[in-house]
């Protein structure tokens, strides 16, 4: 095992099934919300990135569907749903 493992490499170990459109979306106009910026640090899959201008963007690939961002940001900031049936992460160990 490498000394520190890259997050992308870790996510690469998981089985993800593609399909559907992004199940979590940042609501227009909320990109600079401070709660979103916190997700840049908290998201266990590192899917939120904050630009130098303080605008947060989201890449949904690799989402572990934990739901933390829904708690942190609320549904006024995020349009939040689970992925469609049979889509997204499929744990083999869990």
């Amino acid at each position, binding site marked *: *095992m490498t000394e520190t493992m890259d997050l992308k490499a870790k996510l690469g170990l998981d089985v993800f099934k593609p399909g559907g459109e992004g199940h979590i979306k940042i609501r227009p106009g909320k990109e600079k919300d401070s709660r979103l910026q916190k997700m840049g640090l908290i998201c266990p899959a590192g899917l939120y990135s904050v630009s130098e201008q303080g605008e947060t963007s989201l890449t949904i690939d690799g989402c572990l569907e*934990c739901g933390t961002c829904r*708690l942190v940001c609320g549904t006024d900031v995020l349009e939040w749903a689970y992925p469609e049936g049979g889509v997204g992460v499929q744990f083999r160990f869990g």
Partner: protein
Amino acid sequence: MEKFDVIIVGAGLAGLGAAYTLAGQDLEVLVLERGDYPGAKNVTGGRIYVNPVRDLFPDLWPSAPLERFIVHEGVVLMAKERSVAIDYAGDELRQEPQQSFSILRAKFDRWFAEEVEAKGAMILPKTRVENVIKENRKIVGVRAGGDELHADVVIACDGALSLLGEQAGLHPPETPHNYALGIKEVIALPGEKINDRFQLQGNEGAARLFIGEVTKGMFGGGFLYTNKESVSLGIVIGIEDMMEKGGNLEAPALMEAFKARPEIACLIRGGVTVEYAAHLIPEGGFKALHPLHGDGMLIAGDAAGFALNMGFTVRGMEYALASGYYAAKTVLKAREAGSFDAETLSEYGRLLQESFVLKDFQNFQATPSFVNNPRFFSHYPELKGNILRDIYSIPAGPKDRLYPTIRKYLGLGEMWAMFKDFREVTKI
């Protein structure tokens, strides 16, 4: 429009426990699961305690695909540069029936689902429930995959976010305060190596909790459970603490820092990470439980808030199984009564009240505030580490007397603060 007797949302332990109990009772039971297969979206730390649910599912345990029975219980206080560990092992933990087992949920739940189907319930995977269907404030079914599915009663076992309960108007959207984020890696290691490193024989297993530097002073800790041919290693962090005290700490980096600790690194050396997972954990205890029922709906498992941090251990799966079981029993009674209104379904709360589930939550209702004491996550690990460092240190010259060595850390202010912290224990 399709009509069932019972629709269960979520094939986790609560949902499968309910379905198993209802199957073979001449009812049309449908379990809806959004994963590719039951277990595909389910994550535990994890360890399950079997004693409380053994008799509720008597036929289940003999052939259940559990991992190892736990014979070593460890707690490690992690300071920045040292750690203090307690390891409890006892013959009682080896005696059959063993009380707790490590478990991998994708494997267990998939097997459990087959048992449920063999008993006659229908499980529909790859099907996401979008919303509940309400008629005159009563829940009469769900919308799933574009279809409307009706039922006399819906049992919401949809996990920690409890979206169905929210949609049904039983509780508001959840907030960070009562939840922690769990991050876990499953690290493959040969069983022989696991046995050697954890002082185990055969199918014995070890459980270890870590508190302190793991979370840099925030609420939470680390955990390690040995499986047959892998180790489940992870961290838990209070989401509110992460928001308020996290500074620039990144949750994934905390996991890496934990793995790099010498106490951990030598245990997983040569191991290969085979899965990376994250999951929410309800941490609010009794005071944060959701309303357990409404007109036409019951809530079980994580969705109801049935996870309990007892300090020395964290529990959830047996509450999920038992709440599923009692939800099913409630449905059977309601069917006899011919009514699924809130009044009839309130039987669920009474059954849980008489069972270990709500008794545990009531008896341990002070633990969430007790364990949410910042001093446990940095001060005490450092203090105990420092005291032991000084006790064990042998200088070139004469060694200080023992009493002053310890006493210098335990001034009046410290003693008073300790007294206040541990006085809280009397409430548990």
